[in-house]
């Protein structure tokens, strides 16, 4: 139409006339598009970022546990950051069995020494979540099944852990995880 071509032709400067070259409109499209993308990106960062754990959740939670009531050969379960933690006072037999292991037999090889604190090997402290699909293994109560290695037995799919919490049999791929903890005294630990 004569009118529209007349009105769009005026106002073009460098690079505007040939349709093969880059026009000012291309630059404007690029700048506008980039600006819009930055805005969208900023919005996404704020929205999705808001779904990350809030400051009160992140605030380091620690649990202090008095070990003196835990008799030899028994264990307790405590909560830490929403997870069950097994705290077990191992017998001499359990310690020996944990040490006496050929590392090549283990699916996830770790020495017992690396899983306890030096000088406190009678205490094994583990995150009580089966590394298969997340059930809580049995073994802390005296009436619980312990499996063939006398450690823990997961009732969901039959994973069996030894007295050091290492996976020996069943579908779990990894040893039971260790929480961060430290001995404040011989009878007191702080987890986290």
């Amino acid at each position, binding site marked *: 139409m*004569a*009118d529209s071509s007349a009105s769009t032709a005026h106002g073009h400067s460098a690079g505007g006339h040939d349709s093969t070259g880059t026009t000012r409109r291309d630059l404007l499209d690029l700048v506008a598009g980039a600006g819009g993308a930055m805005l969208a990106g900023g919005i996404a*960062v*704020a*929205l999705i*970022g*808001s779904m990350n754990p*809030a*400051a*009160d959740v992140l605030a380091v939670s620690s649990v202090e546990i008095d070990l003196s009531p835990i008799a030899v050969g028994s264990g307790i379960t405590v909560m830490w950051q929403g997870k069950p933690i097994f705290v077990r006072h191992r017998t001499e037999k359990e310690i020996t069995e944990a040490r006496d292991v050929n590392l090549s037999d283990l699916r996830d090889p770790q020495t017992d020494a690396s899983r306890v604190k030096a000088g406190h090997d009678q205490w094994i402290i583990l995150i009580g979540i089966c590394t298969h699909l997340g059930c809580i293994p049995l073994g802390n109560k005296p009436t619980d099944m312990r499996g063939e290695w006398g450690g823990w037995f997961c009732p969901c799919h039959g994973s069996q852990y030894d007295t050091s919490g290492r996976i020996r049999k069943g579908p779990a791929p990894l040893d039971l995880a260790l929480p961060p903890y430290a001995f404040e005294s011989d009878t007191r630990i702080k987890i986290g």
Partner: protein
Amino acid sequence: MAGLHKSDLPNPVLNWIDSRLPIITMMQKEYGVFPTPRNFNYFWNFGALAMVTLVLMIVTGIFLAMNYQPNTGLAFDSVQHIMRDVNYGWLLRYVHQNGASMFFIVTYIHIFRGMYYGSYKAPRELLWILGVVILLLMMATAFMGYVLPWGQMSYWGATVITNLFSAFPGVGKYIVTLLWGGFSVDQPTLNRFFSLHYLLPFVLIGVVFLHVAALHIVGSNNPLGIEPGGPQDTLPFHPYYTAKDSVGICVFLIVWAAFVFFAPNLLGDPNNFIEANPLQTPADIVPEWYFLPYYAILRSVPNKLLGVCMMFGSLLVLLILPWLDTSRVRSCRFRPTYKWFLFAWVISFAVLGYCGMNKPEGIFVILSRVATLYYYAFFLVITPILGKLERPLPLPVSITQSVTGRPLESH
């Protein structure tokens, strides 16, 4: 194959989708080539700005709802949790809180545009009515949203406004009990307000869809108030009005951001930083600024029921405006007398807002009565009479001639 839409899209994947659900063709038609009057001024940006605001309010609202607790013992603290602990929580909250104000600013300007340029007149009556419905839904949503933080003003504002319904004779008391779900504003009220506050914006989306659909049947009005005579009077919506709307949106977001980052509590009430106390009424109960004119109308008369009726009436009278206006001329550009009465109406709305901010004592009583009187007189007396009596200015021959100064060249 029978039933498939004949799609013209070159891309085979898009063509497959479009032939089964022609949303791409629809978008191209309604927002691509849609013939739009070429002479829009910036007043025509405000509908798009309202849509952008609605989307942003829904998005921020959804993420706020992930952390908000609709329990009277936890609500206030959950908002503080959002402000202090949740990542970017402060940003979500301030965007949402100031977005409510922005929503009303753009909507009031959008309504003014409709009134000044006669966009409510035939054949756009239903478009206008849908707009009034949108305004009512916005007000309900905003009212309930303000209750959620459970501050002093949240609680007492809710108490005052829900108590209004007791004015209705006979059934009033039962209506209020039904609204409350109890014998005062309390847990059941908060819970249902949260549910409805989440719901209504999606109802709003539906009504906005109808509003835009109705618009696309009759086409947009324009500052001259005369119908486009042909394609020479229009431009395709894209790229002309997508570009212009983008500019408008940028400016709008700058204004919104100025509030969010530099004055986030400027439009708010300090009383809402105090947790709700059912046993202590604040010295002044005042709604948010966008409700102040209606609050003033409510308090302008000493009779409770009459005040309620006048307040609701002030919104309902908008619905019949297309039939009150007897003028054959749409745009106030060509109505030299009427436009001053319209400006006076805008001033009366602002005066009512100012009265609403203050206690109904002294000068504010007389001021709110005069302003309320003019508010109603404008619609019920001036608009019908002036439409018949006024001598309008001569209308332009065509949009193109008015815009280019040249008569249309013959093809």
